[in-house]
């Protein structure tokens, strides 16, 4: 019998705590596969953040550290500076990275920390029950924007990849999505490149992954994937925003 697909060694056997239909699981798998394929698992440190992925320290099959809300890039800095030869990555959501942790992410990029940031943007605070995030789309209904996000009072959704690309210290910034098999494969290529760059000491990388929150959005899993493709990707255009590593 030929094995055509198997679970990556990059994930532990702990069952995911994610809701059915959520694409966090896919993104975890992509990160884990990249670490395995690049042979980095034995000398990597994952920094888990606060949000739905707070338990990711249980899932990635490498050393891990749980960080305070928004502070993962600072924690990653501490690890990387004492172990520059190790691979250090953060896994952060949009509340963590684009709201409470803007200073830490901007300044880690500004210093050109040689780390990899996986930024999962699902336009909502998932873990706390679906509140508005800085990335929530205009008119999108959340539990704290019950009449839809009013941009006149809450601002236009923040575009982190565009912002981060303006920082001289950043090396590689790309936005991808996990909406269908093709986009998932592209997302994996970007994530792999980011880890490859870190291995080659090329500096700071952030891969923004447009992800679903079908529960928080009040959509079926399939409709949520369509929402990523049609709504999110049109406000948050996919693509490479910066690549100094070529």
């Amino acid at each position, binding site marked *: 019998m030929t094995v055509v697909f198997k679970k990556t060694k990059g994930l532990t056997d702990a069952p995911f705590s994610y809701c059915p239909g959520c694409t966090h699981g896919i993104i975890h798998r992509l990160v884990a596969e990249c670490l395995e394929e690049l042979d980095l698992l034995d*000398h990597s440190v994952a920094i888990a953040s606060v949000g739905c992925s707070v338990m990711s320290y249980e899932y990635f099959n490498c*050393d*891990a550290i749980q960080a305070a809300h928004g502070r993962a890039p*600072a*924690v990653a*800095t*501490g690890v990387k*500076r004492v172990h520059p030869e190790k691979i250090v990555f953060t896994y952060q959501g949009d509340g963590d990275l684009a709201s409470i942790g803007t200073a*830490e992410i901007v300044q880690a990029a500004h210093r050109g920390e040689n780390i990899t940031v996986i930024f999962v943007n699902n336009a909502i605070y998932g873990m706390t029950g679906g509140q508005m995030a800085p990335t929530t789309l205009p008119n999108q209904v959340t539990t704290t924007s019950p009449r839809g996000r009013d941009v006149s009072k809450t601002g236009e959704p923040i575009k982190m990849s565009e912002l981060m690309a303006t920082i001289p210290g950043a090396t590689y910034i790309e936005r991808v999505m996990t909406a269908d098999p093709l986009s998932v494969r592209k997302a994996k290529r970007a994530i792999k490149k980011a880890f490859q760059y870190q291995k080659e000491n090329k500096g700071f990388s952030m891969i923004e992954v447009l992800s679903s929150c079908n529960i928080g959005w009040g959509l079926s899993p399939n409709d949520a994937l369509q929402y990523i493709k049609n709504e999110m990707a049109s406000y948050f255009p996919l693509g490479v925003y910066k690549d100094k590593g070529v």
Partner: protein
Amino acid sequence: MSKVLMKGNEAIAQAAIAAGCNAFFGYPITPQNELIEYMSKYMPDKGAFVQAESELAAINMVYGAAAAGARAMTSSSSPGLALKQEGISYCAGAELPAVIVSVSRGGPGLGGILPAQGDYNQATRGGGNGDYKVIVLAPNGVQEATEMVRKAFYLADTYRNPVIVLADGVIGQMMEPVEINTEALPLIAKPWASDGNLSRGHRNVVNSLFLNPVELEKHNQDLRAKYDLIEEKEVDYELSHDENAEVMFVAYGTPSRIVKAAIENLKAEGINACLFRPKTLYPFPYEALKKAAQGKKFVLCAELSMGQMIQDVRLSLEGSVPAHFYGRAGGMVFEPKELVNAVKDHLGGR
């Protein structure tokens, strides 16, 4: 090695490096700036120095470096310590060794930059969330500050707990002759460190999250048992003994030296007094203080605050001896004669 004249801030930094500190993260704030400057200049190439974007980031860098096995340290002053409280709670929760130096100044708010002791409660009670304790060492001069920062790394590693060295603006800014211990501080194995090395045969996770209440209660009980051990073993104080003393001062840090001058002045006027100086503010020397106070007419607690350590002094005494307080704040420092007058007032206008 002969003595050199050094600023407290620089001497603390040098002593930290001598004690094996290999990761420092800080943010500029007066009156501790010479400490971060010294670190930027003298941290060995193999070590880590980062001027962080904030005190918040600095303590979280310490959290990361300590989690990865380093002897990590940060330093700041009062308002900066307020910002570090979140990270200190995380370090305590995840049982990470970390050394935090606070060169304190007057508050509240932006306050002032001159020496004060309004952060006794901030250091000993903390502002972070949860049921945790931080060991707090209080030096009274530059030499002792260097010894205490060394001890802080030892205690942090031994107990896997944050340790605060609570200095004040005088200690940070003043120069005194100092001899720094350059003997290597033995490394303590950290098999728990999450340093990206699976060759040990298993994953290491550094974490303070316990969603299961049974596990979290157990974690709190384990922490409590550790704090009990610290309270049993690590209490430290200085008692200038005088059998004839009718009054006992209690003071820590720089003010304890002013108390010594007041004691001399009182002696000249025929009044015998002694000094009890806590060197560890947590664990506080409750029993020793109570014992030392027995037979005294009263205890006078002198602080550069409006009264913070006095609460621990009263807890120690349990009403056995009257406790009075004398304090100045905001960068104003009492003079020996003020303390002399306070003693005479309480003795009934002698």
